[in-house]
């Protein structure tokens, strides 16, 4: 990090304290900045790629080293003359925790548990700067600032001299993400004798959930197959937590974790699509199970895959009362039965 950048950080921090906004005490500042420039040309042969990424968090840290969770992920893949991919995830609070683990989101999952209400006392070394920063608590309102700024530009040129491949690709991607979130504290209710009703979490600390994600991809292998996608999400509160549990968003993070997770996420997405088609096929016009179709499907798939579609599996599927129950059973735990059943769907239903 450059000296000027360090100076800027200290300046932000000091301004935060001196203006009384409690940055790093009762507020968390989380920001990232990404910039990618790609310039590939065949005349003259040139390949320039520059990636710049900055991340910063200023957050309060409490007893035991606990910190309100934030998470940022950034991924870029350059296919030179054939395309370009970039994805980014930016989250805090319950949404960050949900993104970092498997399963769906849980409200208040990122809650920090303390033994007593914390009070911030800013100082530089031994010199006290004066003032106390208790956390805002029940009955108080504090602004929450959250925003992103994105620009994406793509230029592809085909001269015809390089067959169907482009001879010039220029890409620019720039994104800034910022969240300035208040950190709230809440004391657990007390019994009549003054002891806490929640001894393990006498005082809890949380910050609002937020999530921003973006996925940009461009396939430029030929003018005929030119294709680009742009998907972006921006959410706060319960919507952010719910969305963070969605595999399509998790996948943006998983692509940075490991290949097994990425493959698993892709398999699950495919399974979801197939199970939805199976559900649609066995649903009659009243929304109930079309038993004739279901039994026919089970019978055909058992004939084709007797090791997977066993009598026990058929019995379990037949115990479902609604098409949705069949769908949920197939998704988990009977996911091994999805493929044999899907293969036996009429072609027009696949």
């Amino acid at each position: 990090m450059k000296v000027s950048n360090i100076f800027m950080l200290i300046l932000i921090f000091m301004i935060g304290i001196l203006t009384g906004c409690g940055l790093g005490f009762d507020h968390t500042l989380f920001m990232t900045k990404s910039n990618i420039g790609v310039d590939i040309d065949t005349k003259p042969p040139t390949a320039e790629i520059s990636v710049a990424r900055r991340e910063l968090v200023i957050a309060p840290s409490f007893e035991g080293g606990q910190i309100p969770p934030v998470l940022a992920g950034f991924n870029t893949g350059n296919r030179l003359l054939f395309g370009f991919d970039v994805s980014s995830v930016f989250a805090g609070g319950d949404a960050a925790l949900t993104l970092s683990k498997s399963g769906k989101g849980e409200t208040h999952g990122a809650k920090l548990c303390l033994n007593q209400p914390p009070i911030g006392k800013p100082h530089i070394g031994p010199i006290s700067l004066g003032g106390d920063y208790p956390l805002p608590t029940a009955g108080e309102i504090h602004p929450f600032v959250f925003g992103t700024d994105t620009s994406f530009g793509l230029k592809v040129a085909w001269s015809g001299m390089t067959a169907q491949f482009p001879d010039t690709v220029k890409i620019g991607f720039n994104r800034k993400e910022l969240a300035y979130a208040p950190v709230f504290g809440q004391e657990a209710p007390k019994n009549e004798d003054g002891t806490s009703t929640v001894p393990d979490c006498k005082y809890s600390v949380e910050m609002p959930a937020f999530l921003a994600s973006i996925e940009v991809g461009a396939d430029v292998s030929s003018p005929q197959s030119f294709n680009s996608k742009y998907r972006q999400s921006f959410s706060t509160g319960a919507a952010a937590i719910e969305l963070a549990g969605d595999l399509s968003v998790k996948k943006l993070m998983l692509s940075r974790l490991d290949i097994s997770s990425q493959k698993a996420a892709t398999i699950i997405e495919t399974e979801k699509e197939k199970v939805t088609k199976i559900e649609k096929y066995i649903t009659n016009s009243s929304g109930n199970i079309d038993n004739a179709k279901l039994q026919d499907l089970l019978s055909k798939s058992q004939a084709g895959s007797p090791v997977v579609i066993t009598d026990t599996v058929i019995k379990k599927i037949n115990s479902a009362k609604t098409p949705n129950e069949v769908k949920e059973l197939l998704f988990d735990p009977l996911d091994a039965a999805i493929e044999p059943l899907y293969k036996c769907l009429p072609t027009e239903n696949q």
Partner: protein
Amino acid sequence: MSATIRIIVKSDKDDALVAESKLQQKGYQTTLSETSNVVLDGTNLGGHLDILSDPDNVVFIVIGTKQ
């Protein structure tokens, strides 16, 4: 509500890792073990007694538990 336990046996480690990750993404707590001797005894439930092995004598067991 009772827990669901899933046991998956794979002959390839990469496949086992994908199966484990898949269970994790579906909300299971998992363990992955490598062994050469796997005996499945479901006879008390009217099921099969089976010995699972692979030509190179190594199999991978993924056990997932979901509440």
